[in-house]
C-alpha cells in the first residue's frame, strides 16, 4: 500500500514521534511517562514508517536488530540493579552522581535512568520484532 498522503505525513510525524518518545522517557522519573510508554511510542513511530514505506525501509531506519535491542535493554536494566548489590545494598537500590556542568548547572544522574533506558530498549525491541514479523507475513501473502 503506497499512499502519498501517508508518506508525506510520516516524513513530518516520524521525527516528532521519536522526540516525543524521548521526552516521555525523560520526564518519567517524576511525572507520567517513563521507559515503557516511551518505548511504545518509539515503536509506533517505526511502525508508521513501515506502513508508509514498507517493512524493509523501516528495518533500515533501525540501525540494529530489534532482538539485540531486547538483549541490550535487559542487560542495562540488570546493570542498573546490580550497582546497588555491588555497594553492598539490596538489588535495585538507586545510586546517584551529581555532575557540575559549566554553563549548564548541576545534573543529577542515577541508576533509575539507566534502568528506565533498559526498559525503553526492551519494550522497543519486543514491540518492533512482533509487529515487523506480522507485517512481513502480510506482505509475503
Amino acid at each position, binding site marked *: 500500500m503506497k499512499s502519498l498522503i501517508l508518506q508525506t505525513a510520516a516524513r513530518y510525524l516520524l521525527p516528532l514521534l521519536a522526540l516525543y518518545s524521548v521526552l516521555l522517557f525523560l520526564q518519567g522519573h517524576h511525572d507520567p511517562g517513563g521507559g515503557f510508554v516511551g518505548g511504545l511510542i518509539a515503536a509506533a513511530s517505526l511502525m508508521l514508517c513501515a506502513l508508509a514505506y514498507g517493512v524493509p525501509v523501516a528495518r533500515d531506519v533501525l540501525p540494529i536488530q530489534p532482538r539485540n535491542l531486547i538483549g541490550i535493554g*535487559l542487560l542495562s536494566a540488570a546493570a542498573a540493579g546490580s550497582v546497588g548489590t555491588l555497594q553492598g545494598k539490596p538489588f535495585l537500590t538507586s545510586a546517584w552522581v551529581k555532575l557540575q556542568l559549566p554553563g549548564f548547572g548541576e545534573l543529577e544522574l542515577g541508576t533509575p535512568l539507566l534502568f528506565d533506558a533498559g526498559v525503553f530498549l526492551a519494550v522497543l525491541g519486543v514491540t518492533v520484532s512482533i509487529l515487523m514479523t506480522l507485517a512481513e507475513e502480510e506482505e509475503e501473502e
Partner: protein
Amino acid sequence: MPLILPILIPFLTAALALLGWRSLRLQRWLGVVGAFALLAAGIGLLISVQNEGIRTAQIGNWPAPYGITLVADHFAALLVLLVGIVGSAIAVYSLADIDEPQQSFAYYPLLHVLLMGVTAAFLAGDIFNLYVWFEVLLIASFVLLALGGERPQIEGAIKYVTLNLISSFLFLTAVGILYGAVGTLNMADVARKLQTLDNPDIVTTLAVMFLVAFGIKAAIFPLYFWLPASYHTPPAAVSAVFAALLTKVGIYSLIRMFTLVFDHAEAPPTFPLILVLAGLTMLTGVLGAIVQDDFRRVLSFNAICGVGYMMLGLGMHTPLALTGSIFYMTHSAVVTAVLFLIAGNAHLVRGTFRLDRLGGLAREAPWLAVAFAIAGLSLAGIPPLSGFVAKLILVRAGLEAGEHLAVAIAIAAGLLTLYSIARVWDAAFWKEPPAHEVPIERIGGEHEPGPLLPREKFLLGAPVATLVVLVVIIGLAAGPIFSLADAAANELMNPAGYIEAVLGGAS
C-alpha cells in the same frame, strides 16, 4: 551471597543468549554454564540459610511492607536448589535432544526465563510479585510447549494456555480482593493483618479462590485436565522440566499461603478439604496412569498422583506431615525429571512414545533399562529408594494424626503406581519389539530414530545417570535431607518466625 543471585543468573543468561542470537554454539554454552551457575547459587543459598536462618532482601532498599521483599527460608532455598539440579540436567540433555531448528527459536533464552520465573516465585515475599513470576514462567512455558509447531502440540498448548489463564485470572482477582480487604500484599503483613480482620466471609472467599487458582497450577483433583492433555506433546527435555518444576510452583504456593496466611484461629477450616482433594488426586492420578498407552501420558498421570501425596502432607498439617510433603517434593522433582528424560531417550531410539509400538529396549539399551528400573521403583516407593522414605514419612504422619483412610489411599496408590510402572517396563523394555515398521511420531524435530552417536549417548546419558544416582542418594542418605525438610516444616508451622524476619520487630 546476595539473595537476588538465583534470579539474576538466569536473567543475565537469557539476555546474553538473546544477544548471541546468531551463534547457536554460544547460546548452548551460555545455556549450560548459566544452569550450572544457578545450581551453584542454589547450593550457596541453602548453606547461607542453614547458617543464618530465614534471609530477606528488600529490593531497592524500600522497607517491607512497602517495597518488594525476597524471602528465603529452608523451604524456598531447598526448592531453588532443586531448580538448579533439574535445570542443569535439562540444559545438558537439551544439547542432544532439542535439534538445531528448534534451538534457533530462542530455546535457551526461554528455558532460562522459565527457570528465572520458577526460582523467583519460590523467593517472592509479596503476593503480587508471586503473580508476576507466575506470568513470567507461564509465558516462557507457552512458547516452549509449542516449540516445533506440530498439530498435537498446538492442541495441547491451547488447553494448557486456556486453563492456566483461567487460573491467572482467578489469582489476580483474589489478589485484588485481598488488597481491598487488608491494604497490603506483603505476605507477612497480610498474615498479620488477616488475624485481626473481623470479616470471616471474605477470608473464606479468598481462601477458596487461592485454593482453586493454585490448584489449577498444581494440577489437583478435579482441576488437573490440562496436564495430561499437554505434557506429552513438547520435546522430552521440555516436558521433563515442566513436570519436575511447574506443578511444584503451584504446590509451593498452596503450602506457603495456607501455612502462612490462612492458618490462624479465625481462618476457615480448609485443611480437611485439602485432605479430601489430596486423596482424590492420588486415586484419579494413579488410575489414569494404569490405563494410558503413551509412555509420557503414564508419567503425566503419575505426576498428578505425586501432587496428591504432596497435598496430603499439607492437608494433615502436622510438622511431620509437612516434612513428608517437602521430602516428597525433593524426591518428586528428581525422579519425575529423570523418568521423562528416559522416555525421551526411548523416543530418540525408536521414534515413538506409544507403549504398544515400543519394546525390546532392555536388550537394545540395557543402561537405560537399569535407569528406568531404579527411577520407576523409586516412584512406586520401593525401599531403599527416595520414594520409599517420602511415602514412609507421610504414612507415619497419617497414622499419628489418625487419618487412617488417607493412609490407606496413599498405600493403595503406591501399589497401583508400581503396577503402572511395571506395565511400562513390560511394554517398553521387556516384550519383543513389534515385527513391522512403526510410524515415526514427530515432535517438530528432524531427528531420525536410530542408534545414538557417542556424543549424543554422553549428552543424553550423563543427566539421566546423575539424576538416578541422586534418587539413590536421597533414599540412602535420607537423614540430612530429612533434617532439612524438618527444619523447613518447623518454619512453616511457626509463621511468626517468617513474619518477624520480614517485618522485623516493627508493628
